């Protein structure tokens, strides 16, 4: 199931592209670049417009629907101190008003077309996903091109949307203990890199944004050469290009800023906090500095995370939840980011148990995987879980488009999900031992003990 090698160029790619290009705008001439397999049955065709807009098409005729996703290569890591949360606020504003559609009209038209639509923002990207019955694709192309090039930003909408985002923050962070502690963990673990602030932004920053801030952000980052369109579904590549080329062909590329990256210096000693929160039980949160998604260690560390935290058969779930009955839940996650992120661990103690009590056996298990290799059976279990997770995410056109777009945006390789599956089969227990010793180092971790307010005075 190889996904890395290019496949044969479609026989009729050039003739129909030439016809489409004959009526393209000044920046719209499309070029066919290559095709890559996406799993055993599907193919991704790669195109690029003269203005830099990339278009990936995966024909999938299983149902009469089409997913049209737009990925902008801008996320919260592109923000600056004092302007955190702007990428996310802007995602909200993209649903407001354009030169030809009044406030709210865009969503109304999409719903009337039977569309499923949403958007999301994270550290490295902003993602707009729309799926429609296939005959409504022209409407989606019109809407997405319109808001890429002709969005209107006005004070009333910005003011209202800031309040919506502030309420979203209250919901996801301020009144949610796991969200609040995760935010604190990243702010503790990162001192230099832009991953230190949350994607949703700090509340004072959200409340201080002006319409001008939003307009400058739009002008800087929302350009065709900073975006990739991913189309999956019951449509031909030719039909997609017939719609996309005239819709986006008039947009010039922008001069993208050089990213003001500040690599995180190595962490040399453990950072430990004890905080009180309005929670019913104690929590323990850990963050180890972890490799970027593009690092060859990322997959091995992810597989180690599966061995340790993936499901009820995992080592640490068994130890903390079943054997010692100290925790209600425990989970671990290696972040899939452009730059090095965190291997996060979250454990919720049972009533009457302390976060400190969780830490000792948790550390014991983490030290064990640094001392001796996991078993072949454990690695096989982790591989099978990875495969099930991948396949389960590909049932819908939206699932396929999200998988393609995510890996294309972060790694530049749209079929990398299958590459990872193939690479997992080549991993050995030695690889997991190596990454355990490289990354599970106490001096490179941040640790937060969360106690209910009423017990803070009694905490050690």
């Amino acid at each position, binding site marked *: 199931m190889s996904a890395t090698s290019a496949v044969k160029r479609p026989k009729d790619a050039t003739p129909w592209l030439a016809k489409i290009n004959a009526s393209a705008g000044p920046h719209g001439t499309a070029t066919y670049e290559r095709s890559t397999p996406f799993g055993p*049955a599907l193919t991704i065709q790669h195109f690029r417009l003269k203005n830099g807009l990339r278009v990936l098409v995966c024909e*999938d005729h*299983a*149902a*009469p*629907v089409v997913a049209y996703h737009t990925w902008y290569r801008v996320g919260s890591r592109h923000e600056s101190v004092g302007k955190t949360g702007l990428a996310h606020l802007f995602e909200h504003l993209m649903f407001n008003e354009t030169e030809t559609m009044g*406030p*709210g009209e865009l*969503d*109304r038209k999409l*719903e*009337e077309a*039977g*569309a*499923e639509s949403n958007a999301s923002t994270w550290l490295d990207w902003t993602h707009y996903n729309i799926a429609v*019955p296939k005959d*409504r694709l022209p409407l989606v192309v019109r809407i997405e091109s319109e808001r890429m090039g002709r969005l209107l930003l006005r004070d009333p909408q910005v*003011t*209202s*949307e*800031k*309040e*919506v*985002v*502030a*309420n*979203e923050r*209250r*919901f996801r962070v*301020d*009144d*949610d203990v*796991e969200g609040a502690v995760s935010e604190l963990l990243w702010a503790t673990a990162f001192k230099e890199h832009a991953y230190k602030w949350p994607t949703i932004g700090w509340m004072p920053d959200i409340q201080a944004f002006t319409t001008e801030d939003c307009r400058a952000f739009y002008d800087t980052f929302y350009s065709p050469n900073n975006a990739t369109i991913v189309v999956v579904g019951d449509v031909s590549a030719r039909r997609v290009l017939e719609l996309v080329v005239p819709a986006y062909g008039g947009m010039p590329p922008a001069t993208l800023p050089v990213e003001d990256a500040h690599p995180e210096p190595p962490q040399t000693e453990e950072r430990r906090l004890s905080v009180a929160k*309005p929670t*019913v*039980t104690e929590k323990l949160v850990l963050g180890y500095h972890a490799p970027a998604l593009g690092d060859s260690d990322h997959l091995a560390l992810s597989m180690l995370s599966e061995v340790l935290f*993936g*499901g*009820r*058969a995992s080592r640490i779930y*068994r130890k903390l*939840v*079943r054997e010692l*009955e100290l925790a*209600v*839940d425990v989970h671990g996650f290696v972040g899939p980011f452009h730059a090095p992120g965190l291997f996060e661990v979250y454990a919720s103690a*049972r*009533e009457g148990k302390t976060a400190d009590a969780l830490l000792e056996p948790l550390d014991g298990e983490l030290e064990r995987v640094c001392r001796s290799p996991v078993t072949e*059976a454990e690695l096989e*279990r982790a591989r*099978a879980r990875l*495969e*099930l997770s991948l*396949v*389960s995410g*590909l*049932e*819908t*056109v939206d699932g396929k488009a999200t998988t393609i777009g995510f890996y294309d945006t972060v790694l530049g390789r749209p079929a990398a999900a299958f590459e990872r599956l193939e690479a997992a089969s080549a991993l050995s227990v030695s690889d997991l031992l190596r990454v355990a010793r490289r990354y599970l180092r106490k001096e490179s971790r941040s640790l937060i003990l969360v106690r209910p*307010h009423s017990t803070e005075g009694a905490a050690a």
Partner: protein
Amino acid sequence: MNDVAPKKRRVLVESSPTVPLISITVAERLGAALDPPGKEGLSRLTSRLIRRTGAGLTTEQLDERIDTLGAALSADVGYTASSFHGAVIRRSLDSFADLLIDVLSRPSLAEAEFERLVRETQAELVDARDHDREVAQSWFRRRLFEGHPYGRPVSGTPSSIGKLTLEDVKACYARVQSAENLVLAFAGDIDESAAQAIAERIEQALPRGEPAPDALPDPTLSQGRRLTIVDKPERTQTQILIGCLGTHPHDPDHIPLHVGNTIFGGTFTARLMHEVRSKRGWSYGAYSNLPYDRKRRGFSLWTFPKSSDAAACIALELELLEQWFQDGVTTKELAWAQRYLVRSHAFAVDTASKRVGQALDEELYSLPPRYYADYVDRVKAVTLGEVNDAIRTRITPKDLRITVLGTASEIGNPIRDAIPNLADSEVVPFDAEC
């Protein structure tokens, strides 16, 4: 309406080779509504214990086997239906089917695992108090369906779980785990004959039993607007649920009410979202919900504004509800909703698992014949008069349950003042059992 579960099992199959994945659902027309008062959580605990002790394996062995096959197996219990749902990659289908049959037919229901599961469940229920929306929903459901099984928690409470015995669980297993109560659903990369063969093996492996009676009464709602404030300290925002009784799939106005709800709060551009979020920015989400089950369920509005906006938001929601009730919807809104529902139906049937899920719901909840097959035509045929009559027949703005989770000392008085004709109000602590 058929109030007795059919005697013959049903096998539903939706084949699709597009993804090398198969889902298998083994469902029963029985659920937590049969849990005896004081023993809430029994059905769910029994299903979880079967999942953990089947096939003559320990829980650890079973979890390892399932994971290594590239599979997942979960137990889900609702009020009137329950199911085991498996998903497996294509090449492991045969091994997974063997294991699934063994799990369902041969659970040890081991005492040590039962006791461990009781402690685990109690801890989970305490931990869930950190999740404001869940806590608010529990109290809303309890007050809306006061005295009815729908008002009792499927998961139980720490004390009801503590009262359960292994004998209770064994009796529950004997009652529900019967070939007579099964509906089997297969979707994905599996053909009809392979699915039928597995279905026959499941049926043969399970004991025969009696079809379960469906003695659940319809819920009723007492008069008046009644407020429950769930007091939780240090909240910056509130969780607000407002509602009354809703619809039953056999109601003649079921689809018209569904269309009416779509206009009121069923989508991102519906009236509720437009007024609460788009115009005022008060709440990140604002939806109304109209679920169905074997008996009449509820109709509810959900918003979560910051504490200082809560009273104004409730007043606005009540005003919108009253307006919807009094004035109904417009021709333009109806035409828009019909186009939305008809066109978006493509996403209700775009995968094999969704298609079989619809067929499964028809069986489990005794939906009217061809409920989903005729859905689009029924939506298209709805008239303005039918929608507005349905709203006036089913929605009761004078008789509402209002649940607000927040910090009572900050929100209590303004909220009570914001609700006209409030019959009574109470304040309950968030960590009280519900």
